[in-house]
């Protein structure tokens, strides 16, 4: 081939340029210490590099999390250690106090010291770390305990699910905190409300005549005149005065059935006269008796609402430390009043208990009934503190800390409990461990109207979905129906489904609707598909329809041709829907024998597809109904079991309080019981400490693993990205040499020409 000067020069330049580029690249690699500068230099290397860098960032975060978790746990462990040493000191003191040789004064001193130690236990419960309360679950800004030893939590509740979890690996979480209930336990209690009018001074004695013996009390809207006998009482006749007062109340005018002394009772406490009743009452101004002088009360003084709490410390002997789980059974009807001597049989624990009432009650006397019933419960050991009757949403509800059963043949139906049996004989209380709460509803100013076709609620409970048909009503402002009525109606419709009755309860709490159930459940969107036929024969003219989920675009679902029964049709629909990536796993199709329904966590809309007669018209799921009752989205239930409420008592401190009382009153039986209870609590605290120890160990292992991973990843990253200095320098050297050689040779050759040689 003919080679011209230009060709030689061009070729030389081209190769020099290539060399120069290579040198530049080596230079850049050396100065930046990296093998590649742009993604296109090594696409796979870059991908690997990105992944490794992200992994390293993750590892560092996991390490930080592990360390933070470790510090938290260590503080918790220290606190628990403190508690254990306090408890051991209390044990020592208790042993001393239980020896009979101590005098009353000595025992008092021991009691005082123990009371002081109680305060120390309270401050252990309120330990903080870096500004957060360790044992208050999510409410790290709220103290766990009050100064008197009841749960504080600023009025809130502490549920068993309030564990702060941190990520220490992919799908690897550790709970950082220990819940206060684990350490202090909670006591089951029966509480009932009582109105109390108590004198502030001791009974002084009085001489009655017709001008000053009338006591006028207004109760439940009526004024009753109570006439005392015209007798003389001295200051030591307090007991006789109270007895005569009760008799006088029995014959108050106007007369009532039952007699007024069944409702308002007088007694003597610490020398002071006390009047108690289930409803509010007050002393009228028209009283002629000198209530101030005699009893230390004022005219126009109102009885004060007090909560009476009865608890049972014997739980500890059975090793029950967890927070109280509530088993709940709601009545489905309003209280209808009871017949005379109504009797109620409850199965609780391994025993059967029967309570017989003393009189009959009218349907308006619900407060009185609850008061008397709970008082009777409180007097039965074994039931006291474990079972309680209360009102929820205008209907009765029985709560207990264990599973209980109401005998269906006893008179519970008079209280509104549905007599038709649920799961065997008797009405069972269901554990209220899962709850779903809607948004706040203002039924004072707003109205809810429920009308077909948007009147169905769908609940996924267990493996099935139930549709609840609410009746078409209006509730709230401008109607005659209240929030309570709404709750009642929803509950009664839920109760009409046997699998849900007794297990799913609806209540109102803090202005929103709350659903409770004993297992996890979900409120979902659902609807009935308005197919032309539920067992169709599919041909080319009716084989498709459109389905729209949430805000997505409509997707056409096509079915294979053929004849279908309703079950086959349901299955075919489900498979056709599951074959669409956008819908898979998000819609459930089911049938109830006559209708086919769709359920999802998002609102669904069905519409006819062009030219297909499978669906007759558009239909959408009942998001309107869900919205109006405060659920603006499908809701999964939240585990709330094992919860304690603000103001409820702790078991540990309850034991100590009882011990102090027993020491002060020299109740040797109580003191020896206290000893075994303290031992049980110390054992529990040791168990908690051990658990913390296990977690700390796990964290250490995790930390080691993370460190190892970190080193490996960094090594991989370096291998991937970093330049091998020796190699790079050698390359650069070689390229420089080549460049030099090319230049010098080229210069020599190019300058040669025939021109130089011709004369």
């Amino acid at each position, binding site marked *: 081939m003919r080679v011209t000067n230009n*060709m030689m020069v061009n070729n030389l330049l081209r190769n020099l340029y290539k060399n120069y580029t290579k040198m530049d690249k080596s230079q850049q690699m050396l100065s930046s210490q990296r093998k590649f500068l742009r993604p296109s230099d090594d696409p796979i290397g870059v991908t690997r590099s*990105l992944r490794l860098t992200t992994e390293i960032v993750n590892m560092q975060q996991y390490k930080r999390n592990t360390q933070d978790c470790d510090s938290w746990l260590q503080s918790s462990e220290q606190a628990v250690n403190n508690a254990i040493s306090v408890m051991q000191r209390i044990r020592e003191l208790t042993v001393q106090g239980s020896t009979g040789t101590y005098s009353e004064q000595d025992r008092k001193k021991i009691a005082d010291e123990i009371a002081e130690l109680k305060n120390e236990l309270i401050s252990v419960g309120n330990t903080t770390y870096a500004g957060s309360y360790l044992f208050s679950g999510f*409410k790290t800004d709220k103290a766990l305990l009050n100064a008197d030893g009841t749960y504080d939590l600023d009025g*809130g509740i502490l549920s068993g699910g309030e564990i702060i979890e*941190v*990520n220490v690996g992919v799908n690897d979480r550790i709970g950082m905190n220990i819940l206060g209930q684990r350490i202090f336990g909670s006591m089951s209690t029966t509480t009932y409300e009582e109105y109390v009018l108590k004198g502030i001074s001791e009974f002084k004695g009085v001489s009655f005549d017709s001008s000053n013996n009338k006591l006028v009390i207004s109760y439940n809207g009526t004024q009753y005149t109570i006439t005392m006998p015209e007798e003389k009482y001295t200051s030591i006749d307090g007991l006789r005065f109270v007895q005569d007062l009760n008799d006088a109340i029995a014959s108050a005018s106007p007369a009532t059935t039952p007699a007024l002394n069944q409702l308002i009772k007088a007694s003597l406490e610490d020398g002071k006269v006390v009047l108690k009743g289930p409803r509010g009452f007050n002393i009228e101004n028209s009283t002629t008796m000198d209530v101030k002088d005699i009893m230390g009360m004022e005219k126009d003084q109102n009885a004060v609402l007090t909560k009476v709490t009865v608890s049972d410390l014997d739980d500890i002997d059975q090793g029950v430390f967890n927070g109280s789980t509530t088993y709940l059974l709601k009545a489905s009807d309003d209280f209808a009043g009871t017949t005379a001597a109504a009797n109620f049989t409850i199965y609780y624990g391994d025993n059967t208990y029967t309570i017989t009432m003393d009189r009959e009650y009218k349907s308006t006397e619900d407060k009185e009934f609850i008061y008397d019933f709970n008082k009777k419960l409180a007097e039965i050991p074994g039931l006291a503190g474990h079972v309680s009757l209360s009102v929820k949403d205008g209907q009765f509800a029985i709560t207990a800390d264990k599973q209980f059963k109401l005998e269906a043949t006893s008179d519970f139906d008079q209280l509104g409990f549905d007599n038709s049996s649920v799961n065997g004989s008797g009405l069972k209380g269901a554990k209220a461990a899962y709850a779903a709460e809607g948004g706040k509803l203002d039924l004072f100013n707003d109205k809810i109207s429920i009308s077909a076709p948007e009147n169905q609620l769908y609940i996924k409970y267990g493996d099935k979905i139930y549709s609840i048909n609410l009746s078409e009503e209006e509730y709230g402002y401008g109607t005659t129906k209240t929030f309570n009525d709404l709750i009642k109606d929803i509950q009664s419709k839920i109760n009409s489904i046997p699998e849900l009755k007794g297990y799913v309860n609806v209540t109102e709490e803090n202005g929103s609707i709350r659903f409770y159930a004993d297992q996890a459940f979900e409120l979902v969107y659902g609807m009935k598909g308005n197919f032309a036929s539920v067992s169709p024969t599919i041909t080319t003219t009716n084989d498709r329809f459109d389905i729209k989920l949430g805000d997505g675009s409509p997707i056409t679902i096509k079915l294979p041709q053929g004849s279908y029964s309703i079950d086959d049709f349901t299955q075919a629909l489900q498979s056709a829907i599951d074959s669409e990536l956008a819908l898979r796993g998000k819609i459930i199709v089911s049938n109830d024998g006559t209708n086919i329904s769709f359920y999802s966590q998002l609102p669904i809309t069905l519409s006819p597809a062009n030219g297909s007669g499978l669906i007759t018209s558009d239909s959408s799921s009942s998001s309107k109904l869900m919205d109006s009752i405060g659920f603006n989205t499908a809701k999964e239930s*939240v585990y709330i079991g094992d919860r304690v409420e603000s103001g409820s008592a702790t078991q540990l401190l309850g034991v100590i309080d009882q011990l102090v009382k027993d020491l002060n009153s020299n109740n040797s039986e109580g003191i020896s019981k206290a000893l075994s209870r303290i031992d049980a609590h110390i054992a529990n605290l040791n168990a908690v400490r051990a658990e913390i120890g296990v977690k700390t160990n796990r964290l250490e292992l995790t930390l080691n693993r993370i460190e190892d991973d970190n080193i490996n990843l960094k090594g991989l990253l370096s291998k991937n990205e970093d330049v091998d200095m020796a190699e790079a320098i050698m390359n650069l050297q070689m390229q420089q040499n080549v460049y030099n050689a090319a230049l010098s040779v080229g210069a020599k050759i190019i300058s040669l020409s025939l021109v130089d040689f011709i004369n």
Partner: protein
Amino acid sequence: MRTTFGSLNTANSGLFASRKALDVISHNIANAETEGYSRQVVKQRASTPIWGDPRGIIGTGVETYNIVRIRNEFLDKKYWTQNRAVGQWGIKQQSLESLESIFNEPSDTGLRQVIDEFFVALDELAKKTGDSTRRIAVVETANTLAKTVNRHGNEIISAIREVNEEVKSKVDEINSLAFQIAAINKQIFNMELGDSQANDLRDQRNVLIDKLSKIIDISVSTTKDKNNNEYLNIKIGGITLVDHTNYSEMAYVEEDVPGISDLGAGKMAKIVWKGLESQEVKIQSGELKGLLDVRDGNGVGLNYRGLPYYLEKLNEFAREFSNKVNEIHRKGIDFNGKAGGNFFDVPDGNPDNINCLNFAVYGALLADANLIAASSDMGGESNNENLKNIIELKNKTDMFSSTKGTPDDFVKALLSSLAVDAEHAKRMSINSQVLIADTENRRMSVSGVLLDEEMGNMVKFSEAYNASARMVTILDAILDTTINKLGLVGR
């Protein structure tokens, strides 16, 4: 019978021929470095001999009948065919390299880093949800993430705008070249009417066509009519650009492209034939194709993965990330006890409206970090239940509908496509350059001036001239003898 002065003519013709040859050699030497110059060679042949003499036909000397340029037209065609690939891949390599700089990965300032930092901030908040410093950190990292995506988007839009400008200027260049080629065609035609070759003009024309062939894919053809007149025709996409002395022009029509123009790139130029505005120019290769692919390629189906593809990927990231985070965020409770609103802004309430330019943290949340809905219904200062769900998104493999994988995987896939495309463009560019270098070499091999060769020829012809001059001298002597010395007996 010969003429008296015939031989002088023969010798003269030798002189003229050598002189001409030397002129051509000097022309070659002078033009050794001229771009596109093909060496010229003088064509000589023996002139027509005189008839008649049965005792042997004597020739009448030499005549130079043509000066031709040594050029392999086939190599030219090959060059023009290969040049379009050089143009196309060169442009693509450049554009993708600058796109790599826009994304700037792997580095500490790229998209991957800001995404990682966002999730780290969320994780730190999860350990102490009530801490206002950590809340602010979350808002800040989210803001940085949004702004990084905004910046990338804006830079891609600027790049698109620049490419559009370049398209327009390339069109102008094509028009100018077409005009020049047509003008030269006219000159060549006029000059060649008399059977000679307009060599230098043809060389200039070839240079113009070389330039044109890099910009756009042309097909060049020449036709000869019955008078042996040559007509050059250049077609683009089947439509004639230059036909002998006529030329058409291309023009551009500015139109809005949805998804690009409305994001600030302005109107895009669509290339049409002037006068036939409805007829879009069919461009298959060349720099213009490279530019158009980069400017318009949305990666759908067989389309090139150009700037719009990466823009759309950023849009998709912004949209899906916002929507998924918002979906979970709205299920939670914020620090004030209210239900969570949006975390990322949703313009006009329509989640489909989110793109990489308006991707932003929700204004109210930016101003007040307490609106971060970390808690679930159970409440409590350290309730991080909802936050946990947002953090889980880091590992959620079905977060994006088009790519299976987590947010990190999405960025990786994006960069991986870019890396592969850029590497491909680089390789293709290098390969096409190697190919064309080879063709160029062969062209030069055929048409280039080799100084040594010219020197040799120069020696050759100058000796021939000397010889012919000698001949003239001898003939002069003979004639002198014939005229002055013949028949002088006795005088």
